[in-house]
């Protein structure tokens, strides 16, 4: 049964670690906006284009 002592000794700090991680994340505003990131990750990086001659490439497909 003495294994219980060790288990508790480990489990509570681990759980506390997650609690702190959550509080930290909440404090940094990770849960404030749960919509925009889903749009943001869908955006492509802008294609490398030359500034002057892009009228044709910008014509829509």
């Amino acid at each position, binding site marked *: 049964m003495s294994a*219980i*002592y060790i288990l*508790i000794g480990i489990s509570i700090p681990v759980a506390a670690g997650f609690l702190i991680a959550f509080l930290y994340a*909440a404090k940094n505003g990770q849960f404030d*906006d749960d919509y925009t990131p889903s749009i943001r990750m869908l955006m492509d990086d*802008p294609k490398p284009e030359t*500034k002057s001659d892009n*009228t044709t490439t910008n014509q829509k497909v």
Partner: protein
Amino acid sequence: MTLFTPTHPHSHSHSHFILCFHCGEKCPDNENIFDEKHFCCDGCKAVYRMLNENGLCGYYEIDDSKGISPKLVKNDERFAYLEDISTQNNILTFQNEEEAHVQLSLPQMHCSSCVWLLEHLYKLNPAILRSQTDFIRKSIFIAFKKNETSLRQVVELLATLGYEPDLKYIHAVKKEEQKTDRSRIYRLTVAGFCFGNIMLLSFPEYLSSGYIDHGMNKLFSILSLGLSLPVLIYSGGEFFVSAWQGLRAKFLNIDLPLSLSLAITFGRSVYEIVSGTGNGYLDSMAGIIFFMLIGRYFQDRTQANLQFDRDFKSFFPISIRVRKEEGITSIPLSKMEKGDRIIIRSQELIPADAILMSGSARIDYSFVTGESKPEHVEVGSLIYAGGRQTAGQLELEVVKEVEQSYLTKLWNRENQKSYAGDMDNMVHRIARHFTLFLLLLSFGSFFYWLPTDMGRGVHALTTILIVACPCSLLLSATFTHAAIISVLGKNGVFLKNAGLLEKIANIRHIVWDKTGTITSSKNTNVHFEGISLTEKEKQNVHSVCSQSNHPLSQSISQYFSVKNIGISHVIADYQELPGQGISARLEGDLIEIGNAQWLGVGDIIADKDTRVYVKINDEIKGYFSFGTGFRVGLKATLEKLKTKGYRFSVLSGDKSAKAQDLRAYFGEDTPMHFGCSPHEKQDYIEKLRQNGEEVMMIGDGLNDAGALMQSNIGWAVSEDINNFTPASDVIMESKSFEKMASLIDYIGYAKKIVIASFILSLMYNVVGLSIAVQGQMSPFIAAILMPASSISIILFTTSSARIVARIKALRTSSI
């Protein structure tokens, strides 16, 4: 990634119009071309150029939506105040030697391409380090190099792109919302964490039924005790603080029994653990706090949403006439912008601070200050929002944006007392005595059980305090009213306050104003009979009529507009006698337009229709006759209301014209009074009220303001005119007229829903308490039941408000 094939601007695909490449609006001409693309205005072209030069044209490919047409920056000094250091300190959320951060509210953000563009601001201005949007709150976070750009430049860049930040709303967003919101989350998290762990540590005790090792049991108890401290002190702290504040104010609030039971449970647990007699009820205590916090969280969120709907989304249906290049058009008040030229006619309210450009202004500020003597205002001076013009037409330039909240405040200021209905008062009385009753009951049962079974007594004491839910009694009215008001708002009906719901339900007698209420100036057929007018006379009559907001004047004005008759601008001595007519002098000619009696015309009995006579220089030229023009759905509305047992009266400012037509609608037994002056209308209502009747006056809010005020409920029907009046308790969009019977019926349900939910929560309390009194309920179950009952009451009230609305075929969501 949304792949999308946009309408090519050259392809003329769906319509004959050329659409602007940037914003997708129709182009007024084909002239504005850049890069072989058409634009509707220079603003759109400028945005396109800027995006193009920076390789940001990917913006147009992202979503099926178009850009926002920017307001051309007419005045470069608009944002000059952002140079001011103290203003900056207020707005910036962070700044050091190099960097500054700002959080701005951008109401125009509407699609994923907005997000894309706004998060690429660094390409447009290299001094912007990063920008991050929050789509739900429609706000943007921007970090920029202080030395290379300024707050003003950042804001101007956003404005040029068509996203002008809403700077007056910034503080509210920043300070209030986020801080309180998060601290509740922290408390909830800590409580949840500790509660879960205490539960786990209690399992062995529950399951082993006594076979547990003594040393281990001791360890578990001590760990639980350690875990319970943050819950009690940090998470549960707010209950104690609120209970203490209540006590100091000599008021027994809802948090008092709760804190008392928390203290008792905790004290008893500590005693049991220290004395080694048991493991206490720390799991219950943590559970109570956890579930209570969840309940409060939901309550706050629901309330905040409903409040937000009311304050920021429900724009009253007020229109304003704006002079644009193409002529005068009516636009909703919410669309009015700074710099607009607005036209205010007699009896209309000035919706925003504005400078007088032309016209003779006599402004009645009784709405704002209570002083009803009109003030004379010189051309070029400022007129404040909330004033009412009392003579002739004015042209004003708006210098401050219209603030919905300011108008709402003005509207709400009158009759503050009437806010709480009887139902509300009853609920509050009950709630106040509830706590006292609860304390007596719990200690009573404690002492009852004490001689026989001490444990049972303590059980009864704590569970009674926890399980009782006075808040569900309190909540039923608040939440039902909020939900119903929100549904009404979506159907074009706006109430001054929640207390009115009950008053409307008590109404038995409806008094209808005729002109502008049951008839509409839009549906009217106008004819002129008499000596034909010269072109100049027509112009003169049109000019005088256009000054007035009376429905008949509007009809005449419209009649001339259709015939392309212009307006001359030199008007002097304009006068409007409510219920009689208008008069003015134009280039020496005296123009009088009004009813037969006022102008001294003989044969008034023969009138079969509504007539407005025209008198020019003491000569009767003839009259305008008006066709019926009853509102669509009048018949059905009246019949429905009649079956509900409402009595009607009709008051009209005109002569007995159309009496027969009206009889057909209202029936033989409805009292009808014609030719009433505004004062007579008021007297009529007063007489009805003296006879003990609950009267609702339905009018257009212009020449029946007194009657609206005198009645129990003043219900103003708003056409696309600016007739916002303090006298009205309810404003309804005229297009909702057809639904009026359903709406009144729906309002009647408010009381039924409140009573139903009240009975529900009363039943819950009675059942919960009667079990708790016997000391049979575990504190833990009580801790779940109590917030569950609060949440179920919230769900019951809001969902039944919506379900009834559906049944009545009313809108429950906006568009």
